[in-house]
């Protein structure tokens, strides 16, 4: 045991044989009704190593993490912690042993303060004043500014993630697990997170890093284990691979990157927004300030920005969920002022909308795929006659989507809520694209969707634009914007930057705009960080 505490990254380089692993996973198997989520998985994580766990949605990554963190138990196989077989019966046990987990979907309580949230995830009851002191110390040591008394709902996503990291660090973890940590961060925030992780690793903390973003894995990780269909299918050194080669290991076949083809010359303006200002009706929303842009037929315009900077409000204004009365001209679809219209009248003009949340907003979870297809398409696809549902066309419409977009499901009768996130997203995107819209507004088209499905969705959007549709993509994922968009605008604090051609703008410039620095010639020192205030 003493040998381990002395281990550093230097010692880890010759990894085999030099002592017990921090965590060794031996033949772990877990079955759920109807699916073998983990099938005889084995790999080891050395102290101080940054180890990537790769795999598509449904490959079994989350199941494995849940077993390591004690949320569920393996059916077979064992875990060796520092060489000793252990049973991790609960998250409490896991934390006791020194395992920290930064959740993919934050496990935070919105109406509580930062300090309360941290206290809830600590094992030993401490004096709040002492805890506060410890929090401030960890924040200073690792450069993670956070005000312990702020309520979580007032914080940006990046700041929320800091809470999760700080609360793991307070327990002096020997193994830190991060599940998709960067999907919500700006490029600058990602750099900062990596600094923290490298520092932890140099102090001997092992890190298990789960991400879809393969170039990040390349930049950060020393080893990678690839899961597919619940099995370990490959291991590699990410530094010696390309993002494409790793993606192909994950999906087990050649990755077809989206083919931009010959982009058509932009046609007429199909969607235009002029001087749109809107006070958010949400308590903690962002007001839109004087937003103007236009999208021409055949064009894909990307809206970049960190979540919570007005994208939701913009989507709702465009989709007609928020109607704007008094200034009908501020949103125009195909020359028709629509700002005062609701979603149905806008859809009738040929517009289609794909919201960010799939379950509950994009689809009704308890209804079948056929019924969900009917809900937005009944008019354009003539699925209804005299107030009745036309069963056969409705079913074949859903089957068409399932086939064209390779939705993996049991059929049109499956409940929307039973599909995995990526599959449901393919269905919803497919449902709108199959209606051949003139204008498509789509929010986070591939959030949490794996490489194969993402590539299919991107291709579908490019094909749609090639047919003359104006496409607006709201996304936090800059790779995505680079992959498919012709132009980009950036939202920060409810304002929008001017449109720039993708060819003329660097990823760093977009990152700075996302942080709210509209003046690119200005001093770069104060970064984008909203949490500069010193908590002390």
């Amino acid at each position, binding site marked *: 045991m003493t040998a381990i505490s002395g281990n550093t990254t230097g010692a880890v380089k010759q990894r085999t044989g030099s002592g017990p692993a921090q965590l060794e996973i031996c033949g772990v198997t877990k079955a759920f009704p109807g699916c073998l989520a983990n099938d005889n998985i084995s790999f080891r994580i050395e102290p101080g190593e940054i180890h990537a766990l790769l795999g598509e949605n449904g490959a079994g990554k989350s199941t494995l993490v849940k077993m390591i963190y004690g*949320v569920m138990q393996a059916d077979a196989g064992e875990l060796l912690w520092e060489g000793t077989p252990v049973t991790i019966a609960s*998250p409490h046990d896991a934390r006791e042993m020194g395992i920290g987990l930064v959740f993919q979907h934050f496990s*935070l*309580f919105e*109406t509580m303060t930062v300090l309360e949230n941290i*206290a*809830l995830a600590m094992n030993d*009851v401490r004096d709040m004043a002492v805890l506060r002191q410890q929090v401030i110390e960890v924040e200073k040591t690792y450069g993670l500014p956070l005000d312990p008394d702020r309520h979580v709902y007032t914080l940006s996503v990046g700041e929320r993630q800091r809470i999760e990291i700080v609360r793991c660090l307070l327990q002096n973890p020997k193994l830190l697990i991060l599940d998709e940590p960067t999907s919500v961060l700006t490029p600058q925030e990602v750099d900062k997170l990596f600094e923290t992780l490298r520092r932890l690793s140099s102090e001997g903390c092992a890190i298990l890093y789960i991400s879809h973003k393969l170039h990040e894995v390349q930049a950060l990780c020393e080893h990678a284990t690839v899961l597919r269909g619940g099995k370990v299918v490959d291991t590699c050194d990410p530094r010696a691979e390309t993002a494409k080669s790793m993606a192909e290991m994950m999906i087990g076949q050649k990755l077809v990157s989206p083919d931009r083809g010959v982009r058509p010359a932009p046609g007429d303006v199909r969607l235009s927004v002029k001087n749109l200002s809107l006070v958010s009706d949400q308590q903690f929303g962002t007001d839109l300030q004087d937003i103007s842009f236009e999208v021409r037929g055949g064009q894909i315009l990307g809206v970049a920005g960190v979540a919570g900077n007005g994208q939701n409000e913009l989507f709702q204004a465009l989709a007609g969920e928020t109607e704007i009365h008094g200034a009908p001209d501020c949103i125009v679809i195909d020359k028709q002022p629509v700002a005062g219209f609701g979603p149905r009248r806008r859809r009738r003009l040929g517009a289609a909308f794909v919201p960010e949340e799939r379950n509950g907003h994009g689809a009704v979870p308890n209804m079948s795929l056929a019924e969900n297809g009917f809900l937005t398409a009944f008019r354009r696809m003539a699925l209804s006659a005299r107030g009745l549902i036309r069963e056969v066309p409705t079913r074949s419409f859903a089957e068409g989507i399932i086939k064209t977009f390779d939705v993996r499901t049991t059929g049109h009768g499956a409940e929307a809520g039973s599909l995995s996130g990526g599959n449901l997203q393919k269905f919803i995107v497919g449902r709108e694209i199959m209606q051949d819209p003139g204008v498509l507004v789509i929010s986070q088209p591939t959030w949490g969707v794996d490489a194969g499905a993402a590539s299919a969705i991107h291709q579908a959007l490019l094909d749609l634009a090639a047919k003359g549709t104006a496409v607006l993509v709201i996304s936090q994922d800059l790779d995505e914007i680079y992959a498919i968009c012709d132009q980009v605008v950036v939202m920060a604090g409810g304002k929008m930057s001017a449109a720039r051609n993708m060819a003329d703008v660097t990823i760093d410039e977009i990152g700075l705009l996302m942080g709210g620095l509209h003046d690119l010639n200005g001093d770069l020192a104060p970064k984008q960080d909203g949490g500069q205030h010193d908590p002390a």
Partner: protein
Amino acid sequence: MDWIVPFILTVITASTPLLLAATGELITEKSGVLNLGVEGMMLIGAIAGFAITASTGSATLGIMAAALAGMATSLVFAFLTLTLMANQVATGLALTIFGVGISALVGSGFVGFAIDPLPALNIPVIRDIPVIGPILFGQDFLVYFSIFMVLASGWFLTRTRAGLILKAVGDSHDSAHAIGYNVIRIRYMATLFGGAMSGLGGAYLSLAYTPMWAENMTAGRGWIALALVVFATWRPGRLLGGAYMFGCISVLQLHAQSAGINVPSQFMSMLPYLATVVVLVIISSDYTKIRLNAPACIGKAFRPAQ
């Protein structure tokens, strides 16, 4: 001015059952469980307390029986909604209907019985101080207990780790489960506490307010207690104020009549319920307060992902 002391005394007796039941429901709801069976649990507590007191002659035993009976009723509710995941709204309504029925059945033998009202805590000398004496020192045990419990609940929710965990479970059961709290067990405990307090609220009616048993004697107070929790936006301090305000409104009718104010008595009996509706509308307009204090997971069944 001689009406002031009797007026305040009747306000206290009218408010105490509301306060007891609402404090219990507040804790239950804070854990994310909506138990609409308060009225039923109060009735069961009322008859249990009355029956035991009448047969043993001991009010102490009666009070304990009421709390246990309320708790047992809420255990049924908890088992149905938390273990079997039945719908909370429907189960709560069923519980109220069940409570009305079973209390009438058990109570049919006790109609017309008379018992001594709950003895007041009579401290000699101090009790004789004019005005303050009878109001502050001349009450029975349950009155002091109700005020103690609402203050203790406030302290529990804001100052203790267990209270923080309770709120966490009500705010996001998925997050609480993910960081390792036993959501179902915590909700069971909160629901049982709510049941015991509702039982006590009922017992106050049958042992102190009107020391007798009458069918359906809660007369909608369980529903007012439910409304009070929303009125208080789930904060115990406001609950105390709210319960006394409703108590005050509900005794107005008696005093208005004796003061010779000529308003139809039916209108005066309507007042507490009318006030409930008005207050709920006003409260609902302030979204921030609700958002910050309302348990976000209220009424939602928790299925641990397995």
